[in-house]
């Protein structure tokens, strides 16, 4: 808001938020200076190229930390004096990125082989994949106003069915079967929520407990006794996309992955187009925002809810297959480790938009892979704390964003036809 004289007017809430952020930046700057700058010496080597095409960036860890601390200090000053207005969120993301960079410099200082930044970014994309599938499943369901807490259960079911079918038949059929299994489970959720009007969150939790219990039962009853015959899905080899895969840095990070990652990219594009550019998408969103109005103009609310929730479950089922087929791991009880719930946090962070969900999933994937890489670097931080990182990130994200993001208006409410 500006007055005719060009003077910026700020509401008390904005001023307060700018002050809080200013304090936060100051704290980060102090932390970077105190811990990362004083606590290190030597050079940090970041590896940006691949094995056959090395590209290194060597920098003094201490210098890097001081530079980051200075930038953060400046940002803190700007915030305390006048705020950043509409740039606030973007600058916050940038500042957090700098903070992580200083942290990595500190962690990698003096390590002879250096730290493979590209390797970590690539791992981030891989780790983000199941979370993004979960988030897309959530987007699909919540756009028609059905809250899907059962994503975790659909992921574990996909992982189980995928592993077994991939072992018995082959990996492609395994992925298909996992997709269908997720769809069946989601259909169950849809029936409970839409036909029987069970509280949607309770129904989702029920789906989770049921799926975790059933897969654990079948796993202990069959898979443990016959691992080679039933639980060896084998590893999918990464496919390098011609041309795109040869771009330095970006090519390695994005275009040298298993089919799951490409399926994810295609799905994000398809869902974005579908939800916002097609008749189906418009009607779906209408069902989610104002089912009564949609019904009045002749949209079959129930059919859209059944269809989209089932499709959402299929997405989660495919994402579940990532845990087994995508990684080459055998099925293991509870192997999804709360990724479905992190997917929900991701969906909220991504503001119920497929592209936003993908971006948010990459943040979680980054937190997840950071943890793996840091445990290799031996920084002295206990691995248990590093393992907490994605969960803490989810809490912060949900706490920080949910108040400002707007869910579909009818989200969570059953529809009763008059």
């Amino acid at each position, binding site marked *: 808001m500006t007055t005719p004289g060009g003077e910026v007017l700020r509401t008390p809430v904005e001023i307060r938020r700018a002050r809080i952020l200013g304090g936060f930046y100051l704290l980060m700057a102090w932390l970077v200076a105190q811990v990362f700058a004083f606590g290190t010496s030597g050079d940090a080597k970041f590896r940006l190229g691949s094995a056959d095409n090395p590209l290194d960036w060597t920098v003094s860890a201490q210098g890097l930390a001081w530079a980051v601390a200075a930038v953060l200090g400046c940002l803190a000053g700007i915030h305390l004096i006048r705020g950043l207005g509409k740039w606030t969120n973007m600058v916050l993301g940038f500042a957090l990125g700098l903070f992580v960079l200083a942290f990595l410099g500190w962690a990698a200082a003096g390590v002879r082989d250096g730290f493979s930044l590209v390797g970590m970014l690539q791992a981030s994309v891989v780790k983000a994949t199941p979370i993004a599938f979960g988030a897309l499943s959530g987007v699909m369901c919540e756009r028609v106003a059905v*809250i899907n*807490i059962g994503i975790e259960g659909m992921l574990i079911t996909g992982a189980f069915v995928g592993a077994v079918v991939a072992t018995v038949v082959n990996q492609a059929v395994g992925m298909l079967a996992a997709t269908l299994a997720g769809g069946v489970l989601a259909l169950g959720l849809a029936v*409970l929520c839409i*036909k*029987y*009007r*069970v*509280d*949607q*969150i*309770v*129904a989702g*939790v*029920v789906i989770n*407990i*049921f799926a*975790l*219990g*059933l897969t*654990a*039962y*079948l*796993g*202990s*009853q*069959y898979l443990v006794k016959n691992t080679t015959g039933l639980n060896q899905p084998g590893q999918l080899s990464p496919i390098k996309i011609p041309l795109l895969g040869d771009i330095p840095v970006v090519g390695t990070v994005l275009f040298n992955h298993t089919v799951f990652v490409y399926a994810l990219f295609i799905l994000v594009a398809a869902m974005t187009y579908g939800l916002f550019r097609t008749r189906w998408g418009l009607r779906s969103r209408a069902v989610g925002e104002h*089912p*009564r109005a949609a019904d009045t103009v002749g949209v079959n609310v129930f059919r859209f809810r059944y269809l989209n929730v089932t499709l959402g479950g299929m997405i989660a089922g495919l994402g579940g297959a990532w845990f087994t087929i995508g990684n080459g791991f055998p099925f293991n009880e509870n192997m999804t*480790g*709360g990724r479905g*719930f*992190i997917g*929900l*946090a991701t969906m*909220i962070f991504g503001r119920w938009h497929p592209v936003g969900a993908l971006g948010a999933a990459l943040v979680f994937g980054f937190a997840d892979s950071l943890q793996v890489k840091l445990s290799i670097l031996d920084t002295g931080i*206990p691995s*248990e*704390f590093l*393992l*907490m990182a994605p*969960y*803490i990130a*989810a*809490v912060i994200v*949900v*706490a*920080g964003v*949910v*108040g400002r993001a*707007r*869910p579909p208006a009818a*989200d*969570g*409410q*059953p*529809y*009763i036809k*008059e």
Partner: protein
Amino acid sequence: MNTDGLKRPETEIPEDERGSFWREIAPRRLNWRSALLVPLLAVFSALVIGAIIIAATEGPGEILPAYGALGKGAFLGWRPLSETLTYATPVILAGLSVAIGFKAGLFNIGGEGQMIIGGFCAVVVGFSFEGLNPALHVLLAILAAIAGGAIWGGIPGWLRAKTGAHEVITTIMFNWIAIRLLDYLLKTSFVRKVGEMRPISKEVLASARLPRLLSWLPIDNAGQLRVHFGFVIALIAAVFVWWLLSKTTVGFEFRSVGLNPDGARYAGMSVTRTTVAVMAVAGALAGLAGASETLGTLGRASPGFSGGAGFDAIALALLGRSHPLGVVLAGLLWGALRAGSRTMDAQSSVGIDLIVVVQALIIVFIAAPALVRAIYRVRTGEGVQQLTRGWGA
């Protein structure tokens, strides 16, 4: 809650100002026919489907031996009964934790994490103060558990009240954080048992152990009867929750905020304070559940000592309709299933995880009374409707 101008179908349940979900799951006055019929039919249906799963996976001949062993392991003799009560203890306490959340419109899935933190705090106090009066030592350890659980539950409550972060997500994340924290703490030299390679805590001193209830019995294996004072604590807690919810102002505020947060706000209640208080009390109850495991059943903390009771608690609260008495009865059923499933695992070809499936099926039927009504063609009242608030609320 539901703003869609929902017409209330005619049922024999007395009219009530509240949403129909509350009449089903947290009724002001229990409708005994409805309160008993649905759970019983749900348990029956779940066992029938469990039998079908056994028939499909192990053959129809295995149904009777498996369920026979289940019943034997749960009820026949002192030891099975003791085991049933031992398993029932933590789930009753955790179930009360979820139930009190339901009464206030909050869904506490974080019982597991709160149990871990509470139980761990109890262990630390339990092994720390040597030579203390037993009564005082037990009391201190239990207070530590209550405090630990209350903090671990209160933080999601505070986040919910202040930022709108949905407790379903935050409590689950807090579960995982608690699991990792426990893994770490069990490796520290302060906590880990001396000379032990595995991550297991020091033994709780005898003065802080919850005394066993049945070791005085004049039978051979009285020493194996594990049921301990935690069961009495669980019963006391149930009475306390009943008293808190129905006889005190605080309980009235809990319920008001659950039924209609806006109304409660206009009536001058602090929704923020109440939300934090509800989650703290829920966390404290789950913390007690953890203490009952560490001070009573196990005598130490080890990874995964909570044993999934925090999740079973959700089922219990639904099964017991969030009524303390219902939760106790449901907890006894759960304990019987758990105790019996051990015997079933040992004496038949059916694995222990079948019970998890049966438990999940019970909740499916409980959560959807309409499903039970459709199968058995009985009138059970309306289907469950909205309990929780969506993301934005």
